[in-house]
C-alpha cells in the first residue's frame, strides 16, 4: 500500500517537473551568450564592459500567460537581432527573463529583484493592475520600465515609457468613427466591460466624451460583468431592447475569455454587426487565435497595429517573427501571429537601444533624457516618435473588421501618428493636468500650466 503512495507521489512529482512548460525562465537564461558572461566574471568591477542586462517581466504562467508569453518571445527576438548586429556600444544585451506568474504582488517583488540585479531597463507588464503594482518600485529605485499595452491613461510616471495607446489613441477615435456617417452614425451607446480598473476608467472617460458630444444620459447604457463571466443571455437581450429605435453601437472592454460567450450569444440571438456593431479594445489577433471566428465577423476592433497592415516594414517584421518562431521551435509554430502589444514591445526595445547608443551609457537618467524625442520606423510604416514631454508614443489609429480566420480588414485609419493625451481633456478632474518630463520641468500630474512671466 505504502509503495503505491510512493509511486503515485513520484509520478506526480515527475509530472510537475515535466510541466514546467516550454520556454520558461531557466531555459531562457541558459540561452544567453556564454562568452560575455565569463568576461563579466573576470572583470566584475568594470560594469561598463560586460553585457548589458535587460529585464523581461511578463507572466509565463497563470491566466495572463496566453497574452504575455508572446511579448516575452518578441522581446527576445528583438534583443537577439540587436546582438547579431553587434549589440549596443560594443556590448551584447543579456536578457533576464523572470516569471511573475500573473500574480500582481509578485510583479513588484520580481521588479525589485531585477533592478537590484542592475538591469539597465525592464520591458514588461500587461494588465493595469500589474503596472500599478510595480510603479512604486520603479520610482523608489529609479528604474526604467517600458510598458507596451494599451491602457486607461490618467497616469504619467518619470520612470515609465508607455509604448501602448492612451485612450485618445484608441477608445476616443473608435467612438468617433462609429458616430460618423462612415461608421454607421450611432446615436445610442452600450458601454460593456469586465469589472476592473481598465474598463471602469475607460468608460468614465467615454461617458464624459459622449456627454461633450451631446449624447443624452438615457442613450448610454453601462454594464459590467465579473471576470470569467460566461452567461451573457440577459445582457445581450437587454442590449437588443435598448437598441430598438435608434442606431446603436456597443463599446466592449470585456476582457479575455469572456469574449467568446459574449460574441456567441450575440450571434445566437441574431444581432448582426450591421445592426449593432461591437467595437472591442481587447480583442486582437492573438485572442482570436483560439476561437471560432464565425460569430465575430464584421465586428470591429481598434488598435494601433494590425498584422494585416500592408507595408514592406510589416512584411519584414512578420517574416522576422515567423523565422524566429521556426528557429526556436516555439509552441504552435506557424500558427503564431503578430499583434499590437508585440509591435509596441518591438518598437520600445529599438527605441531604448537607440537612446542608449545616443547617450553613450546605460545610466537610467541619461537614457531617460535620450529616449524623449527618439524616432523609430515602426512596422505600420510610420515614423513613431516618443513624445518629448509626456513619455507616451505618438501612434496611428486603425479600425479593423474581424474577418474569417482571425485577421482584420482595416476599414479606417488616421492620417498619421497622433500624440497621446495621458490626462483626458474630457474628465473634469484631469482636464488641467499636465505631464511634462522635459528638463527642467519634471512633473507627471501638475494642475497648473508651466509657470512663466515673472
Amino acid at each position, binding site marked *: 500500500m505504502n509503495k503505491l503512495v510512493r509511486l503515485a507521489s513520484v509520478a*506526480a512529482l515527475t509530472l*510537475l517537473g515535466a510541466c514546467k512548460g516550454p520556454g520558461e525562465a531557466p531555459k531562457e537564461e541558459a540561452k544567453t551568450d556564454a562568452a560575455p558572461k565569463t568576461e563579466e566574471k573576470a572583470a566584475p568591477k568594470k560594469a561598463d564592459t560586460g553585457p548589458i542586462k535587460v529585464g523581461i517581466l511578463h507572466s509565463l504562467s497563470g491566466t495572463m500567460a*496566453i497574452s504575455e508569453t508572446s511579448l516575452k518571445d518578441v522581446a527576445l527576438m528583438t534583443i537577439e537581432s540587436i546582438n547579431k548586429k553587434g549589440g549596443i556600444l560594443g556590448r551584447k544585451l543579456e536578457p533576464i527573463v523572470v516569471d511573475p506568474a500573473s500574480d500582481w504582488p509578485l510583479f513588484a517583488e520580481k521588479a525589485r529583484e531585477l533592478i537590484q540585479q542592475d538591469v539597465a531597463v525592464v520591458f514588461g507588464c500587461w494588465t493595469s493592475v500589474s503596472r500599478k503594482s510595480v510603479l512604486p518600485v520603479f520610482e523608489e529605485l529609479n528604474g526604467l520600465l517600458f510598458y507596451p499595452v494599451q491602457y486607461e491613461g490618467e497616469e504619467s510616471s518619470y520612470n515609465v515609457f508607455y509604448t501602448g495607446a492612451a485612450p485618445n489613441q484608441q477608445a476616443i477615435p473608435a467612438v468617433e468613427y462609429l458616430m460618423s456617417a462612415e461608421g454607421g452614425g450611432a446615436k445610442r451607446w452600450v458601454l460593456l466591460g469586465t469589472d476592473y480598473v481598465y474598463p471602469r476608467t475607460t468608460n468614465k472617460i467615454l461617458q464624459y466624451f459622449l456627454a461633450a458630444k451631446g449624447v443624452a444620459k438615457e442613450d448610454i447604457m453601462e454594464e459590467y460583468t*465579473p471576470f470569467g463571466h460566461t452567461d451573457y443571455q440577459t445582457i445581450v437581450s437587454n442590449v437588443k431592447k435598448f437598441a430598438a429605435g435608434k442606431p446603436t453601437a456597443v463599446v466592449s472592454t470585456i476582457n479575455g475569455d469572456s469574449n467568446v460567450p459574449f460574441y456567441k450569444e450575440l450571434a*445566437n440571438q441574431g444581432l448582426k454587426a450591421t445592426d449593432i456593431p461591437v467595437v472591442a479594445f481587447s480583442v486582437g489577433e492573438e485572442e482570436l487565435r483560439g476561437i471560432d471566428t464565425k460569430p465575430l465577423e464584421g465586428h470591429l476592433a481598434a488598435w494601433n497595429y494590425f498584422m494585416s497592415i500592408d507595408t514592406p516594414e510589416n512584411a519584414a517584421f512578420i517574416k522576422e517573427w515567423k523565422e524566429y518562431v521556426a528557429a526556436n521551435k516555439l509552441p504552435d509554430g506557424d500558427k503564431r501571429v503578430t499583434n499590437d502589444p508585440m509591435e509596441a514591445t518591438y518598437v520600445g526595445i529599438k527605441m531604448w537601444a537607440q537612446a542608449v547608443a545616443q547617450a553613450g551609457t546605460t545610466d537610467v537618467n541619461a537614457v531617460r533624457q535620450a529616449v524623449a524625442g527618439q524616432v523609430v520606423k515602426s512596422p505600420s510604416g510610420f515614423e513613431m516618435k516618443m513624445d518629448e514631454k509626456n513619455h507616451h508614443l505618438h501612434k496611428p489609429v486603425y479600425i479593423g473588421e474581424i474577418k474569417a480566420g482571425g485577421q482584420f480588414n482595416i476599414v479606417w485609419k488616421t492620417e498619421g501618428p497622433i500624440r497621446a493625451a495621458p490626462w483626458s481633456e474630457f474628465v473634469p478632474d484631469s482636464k488641467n493636468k499636465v505631464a511634462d518630463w522635459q528638463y527642467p520641468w519634471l512633473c507627471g500630474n501638475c494642475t497648473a500650466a508651466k509657470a512663466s512671466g515673472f
Partner: protein
Amino acid sequence: MTRTFLLTIAALFLWASQASAGPAEVDQALALLSSETHVDMTRGIADLAVADPDKALVVLTALEAGELKKDGRGVVFLETDGKVLQASSLEPTTPSGNARTIALNNTSRRALSSTLSKLRLTAKRVDVRLESAKRLTEYPDEESAELIRTLIDAEKNADVRRWMALALAKVDLKSEDAKLRMQAAKSIQDSDDISLEPDLKALVVPDAKGHYLEKDAAVRAELDRALQSVQRRIFFINIIANTIYGLSLGSVLLLAALGLAITFGLMKVINMAHGEMLMLGAYSTYFVRERLLAAGPEVAEYYLVLAIPFAFATTFAMGVLLERLVIRHLYGRPLETLLSTWGLSLILIQLVRVVFGAQNVTVANPDWLSGGVELMPALVVPYSRIAVLSFTLLVVAFVWFILRGTSVGLKVRAVTQNREIAASLGIATRRVDMWTFGLGSGLAGLGGVALSQLGNVGPELGQQHIIDSFVVVVVGGVGNILGTVISGFGLGLANKILEPSVGAVMGKILLLVLLIFFIQWRPQGLFALKGRAAEN
C-alpha cells in the same frame, strides 16, 4: 396575376421617380458604388436601385455575396456561377489588369440590405417578401413608405401585409397629415412590436414643459392604447425570457455540479479536481472534433454524437485511475483529500497545457446548433441552450436510472448509507467506491461536452465552475441528487431574476450574501438526509 404584375411594374416605376433609366445614370451609380469611401458607396447603392431596378437587383445581389469586382481599367464586373458579366450591361466581358473585390463595411452593408429589401419586396417567393418586409421595418424611410403604399393592397400574404403595414406606420407616425397619423396609430394597435416603444413614448409622454409631440388628442389616445399594449407585451416577454434564461443557466450549473453531487455528495470526497474533469470532457470534445475534421467537414458536423460517449469514457477512466492511485488512501481524511485533489487539479491543468498548449482551443458549434428560434419578437432562444437544457434532463434521468434502477446503483446507495453493514452483507465496498468515483467523473465529463458548446475551452475551464458546483451541491443538501437538481435550477433562476435589476456583478454578490444566510438557516441544505446515515 396580370394585374399584380402591372402594379408591380407601376410601383417600381413610381419608386424610380424619374423614369429615365439611362445608362449614364447606371454608370454614374456604379462609379460611386465602387469608390473607396463607404459614404459614396452608400449613395451609389441607392442611386443604382433608382436608375435601373432590374439590373440593380442582379448587381447588388452579387455585391452582397462578395462577387462584385472592379478591374484595372475601373470597369465593374460580377463573377457569378463561373460567368463574368459587365455590371453596366450584364453582357459577358473579360476584365483586364488587377481586379479588386468591392468590400463592404457595416454602413454600406446596412444600406445594401435596406435597398435590396425594397427591390425584393416584389419577389415571387413569399419567404423572400416576408424577410424583406421585416427588414424594412428596421429602416423606416419615406422611400420605402411610398413603395409599400403602392404594393400593400396587392399583397396576398397576410403576414407580409402585416409587416408592410408596420413599416408604413413607423414612417406615417411622423407624418404632417393628422389623418395619416391616425391611420398609422390604428394599424399598430395589435402589432405588439416592441421596437415601437421608444417612438411611442416620445410621442405620448409630455416633455418637461408639459408639451406633447403628438398634438392631436384623438391620435394621442389611440397611441396611448398602443403603448400600453406594447408595454404589457414587454413585461410579459421579460418574465418569460428571465424564466428561460434562468432555466438555461440552471441547467449549466446543474450539469457542472451533477458529478460533484456524486463524488462529494455521496462519497464525501472533497474533490477539488472536479473542475478539471469538466475540462477534460471539453478537451475530449475538441479531440474528437479535430479527428473528425481530418475525415471531412460533413462528418465533423456530427462530432457531438461521438464526443458524448468518448468524453464519458475518458473521464470515467481518469476518475477510476485517480481513485485507485490517490483518493482511496485518503478516505475519511477530508483535509488531506482536499489538498491532494487540489494538487491533482494543478497537475491536470499543466498536463493539458503541455499537450494542447496554453491557448484556448476552438470547438465550433455544429451548424445545426448555431442560431436560435424566435419564440417572440426580441426573445430568441439559442439552439445550443435548448440542446444543453434537454441534455441536462437526459443526464439527470440517466443518473436516476443508474442509482435507482440498476444493481450497481443499489450497491452505491447501500455503501454510502452504511459502509460497515454493506460490507458485512458481502458488497465489495472498495470496488463500489471506485465505480462511484468513476461515475461522478464521467458525469463531469458529460458536463464538459455541454460547456464546450457555450463558452471557452482552455486549461482553466474547470476553475471557473468549481466554486459554483460546490455551491449547488451544498445548497441542494449533500447526498441528495434531487436536491442538487432543484438547487441548480433554483440558483439559475434566482441569478437571472436578480440580474436585470441590479446588474451581473451585484447580482452575483447578492446571491452569495443570500447563500450565507441560507446556510446559517439550513446548514444541511434544502433536502437534509434523514435517519441514521445523516448522523455519521
